[in-house]
């Protein structure tokens, strides 16, 4: 009995500690502050708004924006809770438990594009931001970004944060070592297509022995998938009616074939993205390139640490653009301070805030006013050797295609990524991987 109880306890604490920081401190302030108008009476206790986020490195890039807000708003304090790096596997399942049980979720929560299908299907989880006047923000966002944050019954629940864009991050110092051009325009010219990308990779690995060409199969698989999705009706695993089309959508098969090819040629470091080993690999220079949607810049710089500064650079992605990722902020209905939470969500998605997040960390704004901001258009990223990220991402932002993701996208994505990773680490034979991918996807969607 003792052992099992203890193990039960440790199991619970592992879930809590390793996977997620459990909401130990509920939103401070208490009930009294709710009624009092903020800032008017000096005696009012400050309301603490918990903002829950996910993602590696600097994730949502809210550090500076929150410091600024907290200095200016004594009555409303923002507390960011970065829960985990992994959205599909940890953050979203935990969030859904909190949302269905009615307690635990923060006052403002981040949602990745992969979770939006399910979030939209459950209007009862969310506060209606229209009640706080935020339908006025509609003009700030591209139509698709705005509409994805509106439920079928017209409830505005999500405000757009960042969007995908696409580039390729590479280690300029290692390129030099391999005798390749390291200057970003010349690097971009090396790989107009993915075939050429693979060829350069073989060349690279012939010269630099202990570094692999790219991080693993999953990152570039996603990049490729989103490019292909744009050619195939902007859908990936589900069609617009939420039917699973993994085996019918050529985008999936093509992206899979590409991942398989990279793996079979030994070009990957066999690391699964958003794991500790992957972060360690970034830091230790285990790979020379990684697929970089704009928000990945913050992840890479965060993982690499100061030691990577100036070594990394940003080039164009083979095969043109693509739109992987991007998130939204929503206010759960269970929040005790929905009004203040709406104010915070409003602030964090303002043009000025999104613009500064881009210049500080690289997450591309979805706010169109921020995209047009000259500071954004001309932004350079110090970590990435002063790469003109404004030029790379902001210019193409308007042309980004939204990709439709189904209600069960998060589960199917995780199942598929596991097969693609398994193919790379040797636990799934290459010739059986496609069938297993389809089977596992069907299972996860069921």
């Amino acid at each position, binding site marked *: *009995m*003792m*052992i*099992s109880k203890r*193990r*039960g306890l*440790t*199991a619970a*604490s*592992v*879930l809590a*500690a*390793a*996977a997620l920081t459990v909401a130990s401190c509920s939103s401070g302030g208490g009930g009294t502050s709710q009624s009092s108008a903020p800032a008017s009476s000096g005696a009012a206790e400050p309301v603490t708004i918990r903002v829950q986020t996910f993602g590696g490195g600097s994730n949502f890039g809210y550090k500076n924006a929150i410091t600024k807000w907290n200095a200016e708003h004594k009555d409303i304090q923002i507390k960011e809770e970065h829960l*985990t790096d*992994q959205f599909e*596997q*940890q953050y979203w*399942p*935990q969030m*859904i*438990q909190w949302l*269905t049980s009615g307690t635990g979720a923060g006052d403002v929560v981040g949602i990745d594009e992969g979770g939006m299908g*399910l979030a939209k299907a*459950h209007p009862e989880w969310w506060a209606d931001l229209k009640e706080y006047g935020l339908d006025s923000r509609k003009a700030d966002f591209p139509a698709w970004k705005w509409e994805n944050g509106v439920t079928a019954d017209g409830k505005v629940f999500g405000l757009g944060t960042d969007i995908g864009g696409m580039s390729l991050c590479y280690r300029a110092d290692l390129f030099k070592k391999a005798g390749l051009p390291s200057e970003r325009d010349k690097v971009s010219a090396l790989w107009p297509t993915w075939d050429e990308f693979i060829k350069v990779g073989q060349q690279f690995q012939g010269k630099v022995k202990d570094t692999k060409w790219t991080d693993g199969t999953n990152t570039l698989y996603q990049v490729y998938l989103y490019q292909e999705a744009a050619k195939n009706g902007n859908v990936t695993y589900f069609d617009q009616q939420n039917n699973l089309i993994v085996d019918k959508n050529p985008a999936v098969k093509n992206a899979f074939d590409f991942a398989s090819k990279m793996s079979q040629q030994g070009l990957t*470091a*066999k690391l*699964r993205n958003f*794991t*500790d*080993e992957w972060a*360690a*690999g970034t830091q*230790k220079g*285990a790979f020379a390139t990684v697929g970089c949607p704009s928000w990945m810049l913050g992840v890479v710089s965060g993982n690499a640490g100061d030691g990577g500064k100036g070594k990394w650079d940003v080039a164009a992605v083979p095969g043109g653009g693509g739109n992987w990722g991007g998130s939204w902020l929503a206010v759960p209905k269970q929040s005790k301070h929905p009004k203040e939470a709406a104010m915070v969500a409003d602030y964090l998605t303002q043009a000025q805030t999104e613009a500064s997040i881009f210049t500080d960390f690289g997450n591309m704004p979805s706010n169109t006013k921020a995209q047009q901001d000259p500071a954004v258009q001309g932004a350079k990223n110090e970590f990435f050797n002063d790469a003109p990220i404004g030029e790379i991402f902001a210019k193409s932002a308007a042309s980004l295609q939204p990709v439709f993701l189904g209600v069960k996208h998060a*589960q199917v994505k*995780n199942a598929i990524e*596991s*097969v693609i*990773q*398994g193919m790379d*680490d*040797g*636990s*799934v034979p290459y010739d059986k991987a496609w069938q297993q991918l389809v089977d596992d996807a069907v*299972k*996860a969607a069921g």
Partner: protein
Amino acid sequence: MSLDTPWDGSRSHRRRARPARRRWRSRFDVKAMPYFLVSPYFLLFAAFGLFPLAFTLYYSLYDYDLAGTTEWTGLGNYTALLGDEDFWRAVVNTVAMFFIATVPQMLFALFLANALNKRFKFRLAIRMSVLLPLVTSVVAVAVVFTQLFARDWGLVNWILSWFGVDAVNWRAERVPSWLAIATMVDWRWTGYNAIIFLAGMQTIPRDLYEAAAIDGASRRRQFWQITLPMLRPTLIFVVLNSTIGGLTLFSEPTTFYGGNVDGGSQGQFQTVAMFIVKQGFREFDYGYAAAAAWLLFLLILIGAAINFLFVRRIGGTK
């Protein structure tokens, strides 16, 4: 439970003239109080044991989607589970890891306890230190072991490389992943079991050993013929505990994969407990997870019964 002790009888006899109410109260004291005093355990058990058990059983008969609908399916979840190869893989993983971890753990704990059961300097400090691994946080343990068993820069692979062994991918290959997790489990729980064995050993009368020594029995012979048979009740307790713990293994393999209940890209080391959490709280298929929890309960019963029969024979005199 008879409380009619002579002492009690004589008291009531002497105070025959007591008013009825007081008599009633004393009856209450005698009859009901014991039940009242033991009730906290049963109340807690009802709230945290029985209720979840019944709740789980109830929902195991439903197709219950945590973020959606609830539909009656009867035994549908159970039949689906029995045909689910992911579930069986988790069962095989769990049982295999249980054996790999528990057999050496029992032996090692036994010999460790035997060694600690002697007179030496700083006895208490050394006995206490055996418990240290248990009090370290499992997250810290995971961090250390994850690095030891890292594929690219891990200590274990580095040592293996001295002997010309290629780097082992501890998270991708099934048997190596079991071994890695078993070492983690053993590291944490061997000392704990050793201390229980030690406590059991100390209850064995000294004069048995003295008599054996006079008869010329060697130390080793004393261990096999006196310690082990006399230790059997403790052994049964520890083995049953380890069976329950081993078959519900969750934290070590979960932390070994970065807090992810997948247990490797293809479930190489996913245990049944992890399977349950995955089905219930990641796929939101709560009914399916509830049914799996009941099958795990069954598995533990079977495992405990087999182990009990096995251990009862150890050091048997018949």
